[in-house]
């Protein structure tokens, strides 16, 4: 699955590169590292975004590794806009995409409800992780040279989600032979402070 997505990203970059080259969109790259803080332990991420820029607008595709709470691989599209005519200038950005899970094991916190939840202790619990969503919005400041290359600092709200599920046999006393599915979805909101270099 991951190979397919990477291949898709590469293809999606190559085609518009050619198209946009004809319209004078300049290609570039923006690797970044970030520190994230939320209601869980502070963590970080590292990512790279391939950008096409024209005038004050930039669009691009990116991917990275996000270590906040559950290690995952966000894959996203991003748009940026700078303000002002000087070399150093502020910008805003927004991203959206998918958050791909890794195979890291997760601890579940069960919830009590006015009934019974029974898990067959002799059946192994195999959890399947599902991709979630990824979104971001923020603002920052760039210290650029004449070629619009240089250091970027930004503060962003970053959201990602992750789901996992497993199935167990229904308890015998319920006199049914169905499979009971439990799905847990984690919705994570963070603030990220990022440092990058725009090529």
């Amino acid at each position, binding site marked *: 699955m991951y190979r397919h997505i990477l291949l898709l990203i590469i293809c999606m970059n190559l085609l518009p590169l050619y198209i946009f080259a004809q319209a004078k969109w300049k290609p570039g790259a923006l690797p970044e590292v970030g520190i994230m*803080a*939320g*209601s*869980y*332990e502070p963590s970080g991420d590292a990512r790279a975004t391939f950008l096409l820029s024209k005038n004050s607008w930039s669009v691009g595709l990116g991917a990275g590794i996000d270590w906040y*709470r559950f290690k995952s691989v966000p894959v996203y599209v991003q748009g940026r806009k700078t303000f002002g005519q000087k070399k*150093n200038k*502020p910008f805003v950005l927004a991203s959206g995409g998918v958050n791909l899970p890794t195979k890291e094991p997760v601890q579940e*916190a*069960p*919830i*009590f*409800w*006015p*009934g*019974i*939840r*029974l*898990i*067959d*202790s*002799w059946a192994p619990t195999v959890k399947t992780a599902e991709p979630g969503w990824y979104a971001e919005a*923020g*603002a920052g*400041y760039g210290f650029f040279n004449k070629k619009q290359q240089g250091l970027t600092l930004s*503060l962003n*709200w970053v959201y990602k989600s992750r789901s996992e599920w497993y199935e167990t*046999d*229904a*308890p*015998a*006393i*319920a*006199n*049914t*032979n*169905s499979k*009971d*599915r*439990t*799905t*847990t*979805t*984690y*919705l*994570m*909101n*963070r*603030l990220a402070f990022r440092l990058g270099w725009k090529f």
Partner: protein
Amino acid sequence: MKKVILALTTLLMLAFGSCIKDSMKQSYVYYRPVYKTKQEVRAAINSSTPKSIVNPGKLFYKDGYVFLNDLEKGVHIIDVRNPSSPQVVAFVAIPGSVDLAVRGNILYADLTTDLVAIDISNPLQVKLTKVLEGVFPHRYYNQFQADTTRIITEWVRVDTTVRNDEVVGWGMKAAEFSAMATAQADSRGVSNGTGGSMARFALASDRLYTVSYSDIKVFNTAVPENPGYVKTVDVGTWDIETIFPFGKNLFIGSMTGMYIFDIDDKDNPVQKGRFAHARVCDPVVSDGKYAYVTLRNGTQCGGFTNQLDVVNVENVSAPYLVKSYSMTNPHGLGVDGKWLLICDGADGLRILDATKAYDVKKVGHLQGINTFDVIPLGGIALVSATDGLYLVDYSNPAAPIVKGSVTFAKK
């Protein structure tokens, strides 16, 4: 410009500060109990229209009828007078029942915490004759507290989604969900997902003995339709699950072995030893001189062998292993004279000649059914399998054949 940056950063922190929290939602299934009053339940104990057999448990044969317990639901009455065409003729609703015993024309069952005596002289018109209230401990289901003033008659499946927000606050760690660890159910064949106590019955002489997790209860059944509670004897351990009579003894089954209780004084069972050659997971039958025990892998007792053990029990306090015989995955067994019928799991039913304990010979083999228990009835055997109840003709032990069957509800 610096002021703009500072203002922008502060604004962002203030604006998004309240968004800095994780949340979680969980979708899962739980089971909601449906209650009825004791009066309603007792009034409904009669021979009602037949129902599908979903979770077969213990069965008992009497006068051409099979009484088959459907765990926690009641008893199915099956007419097997024509082995080629067995018919489920009635269902008796006994919520919470997990075992039964029959003495004369009286069937004893546990109605959750009560012992009921039911006249089955006419299986199509059974009648409740006596209720002994509160003789068994209350059930508990993991950590769910049931209303003990009423009886749970069924469980309704409910899908639900619950959301819980975690911490609000900038820079503070969240407390995780309060972890209510759900106690895990035992394997399906034993505890049915319930904790606590479930009665197991055994009749010896005119006494009914039941075990419930840690004790033996004695009931006087000299007048079968009017049983009376006698006493409770503590076994001294907390993992008791089975009981069966063995001559003038009771074998009480636990995870680690069998406790032997002498019932020479039938109202006062006294422990006199342990029988380490079988555990609660290991079915045992005896012809008085030898005990035949099947051991298999895949049970909650652990173990890695699949075999039949023949144990000399002439001195029950000093039994000794005569010989072990390899099997595929043996479960329940029965003895009919020199013939030993063994349910060998997916490998069907085996018939062995046990004339010589040290040289038991395999004689017949019926394949194609996944078997787990058997009652030999002198030529016709009642065989419980995963998909139904089979009547097997073993009058020619070398060539057992299926005469008829009753199918269980599909899984």
